[in-house]
């Protein structure tokens, strides 16, 4: 961390987006994480994605649990809504918020400890319900905040900083997400913004439960030889199946590509995901095939990244429940009795 606030002076020729903002306008307060932490790069990628999508910051709600990863919402989108919940409870709070006001964009930020240990149940149910959100797990294989204990995503046989081997089976959150019915599933790496930024943009534009497992090295406790979540290991074993361009609106696709190298997916909001295939026969719309592919490659020790699965026609929790479109706080006074009524109910419960 630094003790200084980041200077507000910026590059004189910074590009602005449709709202007249520069990417600096999407920053939060200065990070207090360890210098070099992968989580900070993910924050930077979120900033870039929101800037590129011309999002008005006040239309975004960022929610998190506990952990270094869960601290990061403070470090981006300083002008957005935020909720820092208790450990592992982000998915429920997010679900509740989303049900109350579907107009906001929901960004859930969590860690592998927060989501794969204490919050595993919450993680599972929010996905299977199809809550319209972006759920990012900043996955470093350890509990960073509590000084580096193995988390549930640490690979069997990987070595801790103090030399101890992990004997437990890892939880693979990607496979779980696919099993649980998430309609957008991706994995990426904090050290590769070229891949990560478009994935976040696509996830934000996706309707339904979008899950991103982002490997994010913990420089303090899990970036040594023997770790499978270190910069070096991930770079060596990164097996990207595709990279993508997000084309907003209805811009024509002008460039010619070799047949079979491009898969275009039109999302419900009209944007197009153009997937450049790196693995020739990978079809990101075929869930079963994707799961097979993933199992195979993971068994071979590879870290499969890219947009692994997407269902552009997916519905979401509101559609399933047939809820009212208007946010609850904007409903008629009859349905929103106000503070006085709430105080009364609360008093009755004391």
């Amino acid at each position, binding site marked *: 961390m630094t003790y*200084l606030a980041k*200077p507000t002076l910026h590059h004189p020729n910074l590009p602005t987006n449709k709202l007249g903002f520069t990417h600096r306008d999407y920053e939060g307060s200065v990070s207090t994480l360890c210098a*070099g932490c992968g989580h900070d790069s993910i924050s930077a990628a979120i900033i870039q994605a929101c800037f590129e999508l011309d999002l008005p910051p006040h239309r975004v709600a960022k929610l998190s649990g506990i952990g270094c990863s869960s601290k990061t919402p403070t470090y981006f989108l300083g002008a957005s809504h935020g909720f820092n919940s208790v450990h592992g409870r982000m998915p429920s709070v997010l679900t509740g918020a989303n049900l109350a006001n579907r107009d906001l964009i929901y960004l859930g930020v969590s860690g592998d400890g927060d989501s794969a240990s204490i919050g595993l149940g919450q993680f599972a149910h929010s996905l299977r319900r199809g809550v319209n959100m972006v759920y990012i797990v900043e996955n470093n294989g350890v509990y960073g905040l509590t000084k580096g204990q193995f988390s549930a995503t640490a690979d069997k046989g990987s070595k801790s900083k103090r030399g101890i081997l992990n004997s437990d089976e890892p939880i693979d959150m990607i496979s779980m997400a696919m099993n649980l019915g998430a309609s957008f599933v991706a994995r990426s790496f904090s050290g590769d913004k070229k891949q990560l930024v478009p994935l976040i943009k696509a996830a934000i534009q996706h309707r339904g439960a979008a899950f991103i497992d982002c490997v994010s090295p913990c420089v303090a406790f899990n970036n040594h030889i023997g770790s499978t979540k270190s910069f070096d290991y991930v770079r060596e074993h990164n097996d990207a199946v595709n990279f993508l361009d997000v084309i907003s609106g209805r811009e024509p696709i002008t460039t010619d590509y070799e047949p079979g190298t491009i898969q275009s997916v039109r999302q419900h909001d009209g944007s197009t995901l153009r997937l450049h295939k790196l693995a020739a026969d990978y079809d990101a719309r075929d869930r079963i095939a994707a799961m097979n592919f993933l199992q195979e490659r993971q068994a071979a020790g590879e870290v499969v990244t890219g947009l692994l699965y997407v269902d552009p026609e997916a519905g979401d929790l509101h559609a399933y429940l047939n809820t009212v479109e208007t946010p609850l706080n904007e409903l008629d006074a009859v349905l929103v009795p106000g503070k006085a009524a709430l105080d009364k109910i609360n008093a009755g419960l004391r």
Partner: protein
Amino acid sequence: MKPTEIAVPDYFHKVVDCQWACPAHTPVPEYIRLIAAQRYGDAYMINWQSNVFPGILGRTCDRPCEPACRRGRVEEEPVAICRLKRVAADYKGDITARLPGRATERNGKRIALVGAGPASLTVARDLLPEGYEVVVYDADRRAGGMIRSQIPHFRLPEQVIDEEVGYILAMGVTPRFGERIDSMKALLTEDYDAIFVGSGAPRGRDLELPGRHEAAANIHIGIDWLSSVSFGHIEKIGRRVVVLGGGNTAMDCCRTSRRLGGEQVTVVVRSGFEEMKASPWEKEDAMHEDIPILNFMVPKEFVHANCRLVGVLFEKVKAERDEKGRRNLVPTGEADQLIECDDVLVAVGQENAFPWIEQDIGIAFDKWGMPIVDKETMQSTNPKVFFGGDAAFGPKNIIWAVAHGHEAAISIDKFCKGEDIRDRPRPIVNLTSQKMGIHEWSYDNDIVNDQRYKVPLKDKAIALKDIRVEVELGFDDKLAFKEAERCLNCDVQTVFSEPLCIECDACVDICPMDCITFTANGEEEDLRRRLTAPALNLTQEIYVSAPLKTGRIMAKDEDVCLHCGLCAERCPTGAWDMQRFILDMAHVGSQVGLACQNR
């Protein structure tokens, strides 16, 4: 691109924009930090060593450093470098004990200096500690050259000149003041080992227009008039004054007139306002004293009646480009304008004149009548004779005169020792890490957003009454501190070490100016366009690393880096470090002003 060779002194020197732009290469950020630390004496000595006249320059310098200052590229205005220099001079206390004093031993060599302006005085200062006998001739009775004869006292009080010129005289100059050299030939026959010509550009251009002779009594050549004012021979001017010209001399003429009885003083310039030679701040100062500046008016005639000046007639013009793109002034066709006045000051340029240098003594001149002088060594075609200041390449300014003086002194020293004067001593360069702790640096890396502070001025009514009253009051210690804090410490360099970098992107993410990119290498033109923020300022370098583990390179655009050190604070491995770059220009013996180095 090839990896940047940061060991070449010029690389980091260029990053210190102000120091690079300064003809004497004064270590600006270093002295500004000392001012912030209230170490005014130390700040003064750093200046004194480099530019010899900190108190004078802190009031009058042409400040090429300020347009170069990086601060001007990241916000509105540069740091007030020049006026901070004055702060060092104003608050330094008694520094005489830190000056070199008289040499204890003579080396037996005698040098003659013609002229006692800043160029010659610099040569004297650099040579005296080495044991040279330095004989200085000047037609005037007192040393200082145009600093004394031209620059008005309301900009530069005489005590400041006396003090700083005095420091040098006290080092043991042999003065021959009040003596004009009329023959170089004769001087060469005297027993001197080398001669330095620092005689300036003493002739003011005239304007031969109709009426010039008839109205001569009220038409004055600007620089002659200013020196007569300086030396007390002239104390009054008419109520209505027209000043012709748009340079420094014109600005000094009009402001001086305002103090000698000129109530309606008008500056009239041929060209447009922007093209005027005077600096923006000089124009501002004149306008602040209620002097209108009229542009695009070409003088046609001095109108007179009964052998008395009536006024000046002007033709109105506009600027037009011809087919070749050259800018020409063409008449607008409007009626000519008469500006009535009692006196005219002609300030349309200065010229060199060397009537006292004979043609047959081995000193070659070009077709414009300028001596042929080597730009690096300052030597003329007569190996024994060196030139510097305005005499060398035409009228410039004080800081250039000083820079020439340093180079000439090095040459004279080598020449007298029988060494090759082309073999120039190199500056001393040093890089030292400023890291004190994880988030602690030995410089203040917090960036302030303050806008440039204005120097407080004397009340105008009082200032205009007395030509000796200094207009600028200077910064007090509090304002000086605030202004000093605006300095970005460009000499604290970002130094990158490839083997340490793990390519985590932390530096890229934190950098407030989007300076840093990790990307595939390429040709400079292509690379510049591919950076996080395209590097379009081609005068600024791209710092490129050798290939990293992923095969990419680190590329940093030096252009708008704030030297805030956040990249180094966020780097987990110390691949970035903030290192103070010290560049000491070589001077004769390189021991002048040693005192300020022992810190």
